[in-house]
């Protein structure tokens, strides 16, 4: 009986997840989710949702790889078939037991982009375009930010004062942007995500407080901001840990009445927002829909019915 039930549950979940997977939701698996904060994060964490159909299923590395690298494959068409089935770096050939120069440099290039994203700064121009003023967490510097996630969850006193001075209190929707682990994610996606989110909020008749930018923010900085401004709902647009396929991926974390002591499962997230993943424009619209549902159901995270 129990086994049968398990079987049924599996079937339903498998169907749902296959649909998600077909949409190319690379980062929504429990392992990958855990990877954001470290391998050992509990497997039942944040409640992820899919936004929209991505533009491409596989974001293959930009440089051509292809059959040319294996000089005499046993089956040339077969090799094309293998290459088309995965974004993994296969069919790369070798010199002795080492990779070819081209393949090696490709890997180094992609890693360089990822490292630059972590250590980079968000362009002031992008922030100015949306009149976002800047506040800081207690992160101090990038090295410390990486070592002390706890300090990226709390704003400096000066920042708290600035927010109190410049922001509307108790807004219906509060939008916050942060560099997180990828400054280039903000540079690459904000100009598409933010306008479409604003449009979406307008179409639902929702009012928005004063948006701002948090330098050195972690996801849970939402809680501190929630204490200061007491919004009904808050959305944090934050750069994800960069991968080699893309270093510009952004996540949107959303929470109903954020406050100190929130747990992961009380937040809703759309991850993998970038050009080859969840399209930024469609993500913006989808965030608006989710925020409207949160206000309607007075809930977020696993309790939210989408």
């Amino acid at each position, binding site marked *: 009986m129990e086994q049968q039930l398990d*079987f049924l549950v599996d079937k339903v979940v498998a169907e749902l997840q296959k649909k998600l997977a077909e949409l190319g939701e690379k980062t929504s698996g429990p392992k990958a989710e855990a990877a954001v904060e*470290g391998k050992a994060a509990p*497997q039942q964490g944040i409640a992820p949702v899919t936004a929209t159909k991505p533009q491409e299923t596989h974001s293959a590395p930009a440089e051509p790889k292809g059959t040319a690298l294996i000089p005499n494959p046993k089956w040339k068409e077969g090799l094309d078939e*293998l290459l088309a089935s995965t974004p993994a770096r*296969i069919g790369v050939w070798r010199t*002795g*037991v080492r*990779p070819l120069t081209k393949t090696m440099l490709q*890997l180094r290039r992609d890693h360089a982009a990822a490292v630059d994203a972590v250590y980079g700064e968000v362009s002031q121009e992008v922030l100015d375009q949306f009149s976002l003023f800047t506040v800081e967490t207690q992160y101090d510097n990038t090295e410390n930010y990486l070592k002390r996630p706890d300090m990226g969850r709390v704003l400096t006193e000066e920042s708290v004062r600035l927010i109190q001075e410049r922001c509307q209190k108790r807004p219906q929707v509060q939008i916050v942007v942060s560099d997180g682990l990828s400054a280039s994610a903000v540079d690459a996606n904000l100009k598409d995500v933010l306008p479409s989110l604003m449009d979406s909020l307008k179409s639902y008749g929702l009012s928005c407080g004063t948006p701002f930018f948090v330098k050195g923010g972690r996801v849970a900085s939402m809680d501190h901001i929630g204490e200061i401004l007491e919004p009904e709902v808050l959305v944090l647009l934050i750069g994800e840990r960069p*991968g080699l396929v893309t270093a510009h991926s952004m996540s949107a974390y959303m929470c109903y009445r954020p406050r100190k002591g929130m747990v992961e499962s009380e937040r809703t997230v759309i991850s993998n927002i970038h050009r080859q993943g969840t399209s930024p424009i469609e993500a913006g619209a989808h965030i608006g829909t989710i925020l409207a549902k949160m206000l309607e159901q007075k809930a977020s995270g696993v309790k939210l019915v989408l």
Partner: protein
Amino acid sequence: MNTKTTVLGQTYQFRDLKEIFAKANEDKSGDQLAGIAASDSRERVAAKQVLADLTLADIRNNPMLPPEEDEVSRVIEEGINEKIYNEIKNWSVAELREYILSHEAGESEIKRISRGLTSEMIAATAKLMSNLDLITAAAKIRVVTHCNTAIGQQGVLASRVQPNHPSDSVQGIKASLYEGLSYGIGDAVIGINPVIDTADSVKDILNMTKEVMDKWAIPTQNCVLAHVTTQMRAIRQGAPADLIFQSLAGSEKGNKAFGIDVKLLDEADELMRKEGTSYGPNFWYFETGQGSELSSEAHFGIDQVTMEARCYGLARKYNPFIVNTVVGFIGPEYLYDSRQVIRAGLEDHYMGKMHGLPMGCDVCYTNHMKVDQNDMDNLGILLSAAGVNFVIGVAMADDVMLNYQSTSFHDIAAFREVLGLRPAPAFEKWLEKIGIMENGKLTPIAGDPTIFM
């Protein structure tokens, strides 16, 4: 128990065992994050000095996490051979370190003494060892295990082929699997991390890998690294799983965060013994990694090296086929840079081998750590020299599902070639039969995945 010492004219008084153990560690960002690390080099040496003079009985009689409060502590306690422990309980940690490194202590002697040691005692010796000490000691200990085939022999470097795919496409997984096999990778296990944690999906992947193994008569074992309960469901429904996998933590609370406890592991063990299809007798695959207890706030103020050793104390109960420390996956807040990752990889390998475990290592890093592929080259060579049972093979080291970098098929081929190591014997014979390897060297057709199409 003496907890006081003087170093370079300054006197240090430590509170308890937890403080001595934590401050005696080499520098780790995770211990700093937990607020338990030594404040400077001098204090670190002071802690090491105090630790060196503690007896094994001091460590056992002052449990950092008492067995009454934690089931991992109970498993470790219950596993101790009292006769052997009584022979050595008055040794200091320094004496134990020197015994392990001495010429008198060969593989048999170390394996015997290990049965009288708790995980905390083994961790204590690691804190008094340099990197080369860790390599020298571990290199003495071979742990041979057998599932469908045997790995761990002298002169053997086995590998897990890890053909992950971002949406679990069976075709995509197969493509990376063919690529890996064509480089002679996959003798430890064909192991896939699934995106989708359901019995159906696990079954699909197990069936596909089994078909490839059957079609080409590949002497290895398969595994899908879903949650243990999902694998159990798949196995009950008849899925062909040679190994069963689970991540472990070093405390009961940490394991709870993983959704497991000893009772569940016992249940899975029983299932594999009764319904498993592999030859055995070893059928477990465990993964661990420093820092996981802190990340789930289940470390009880104990340092991450000691908590990691306790994972091995738990793993030892189940006589696993392979154990793997995923050393650089957890991120810079636990292991900040290459120096810390390399140190942790060597510590984990040594501590695992001292527990009599078939230790492997996922030599790896994430993009926000101060680490790059050169550092992985270094750690891979160091571990291969230390006799690591297996390492992980990913196409060009880039895992497109888990978004981190490990070691590549090329890297493992190079570790073998440079150090004169071979694949597992049965697998090497198979590679020769297929024509990929000759006299321990890759042949001109190696690296062409289409030979399996």
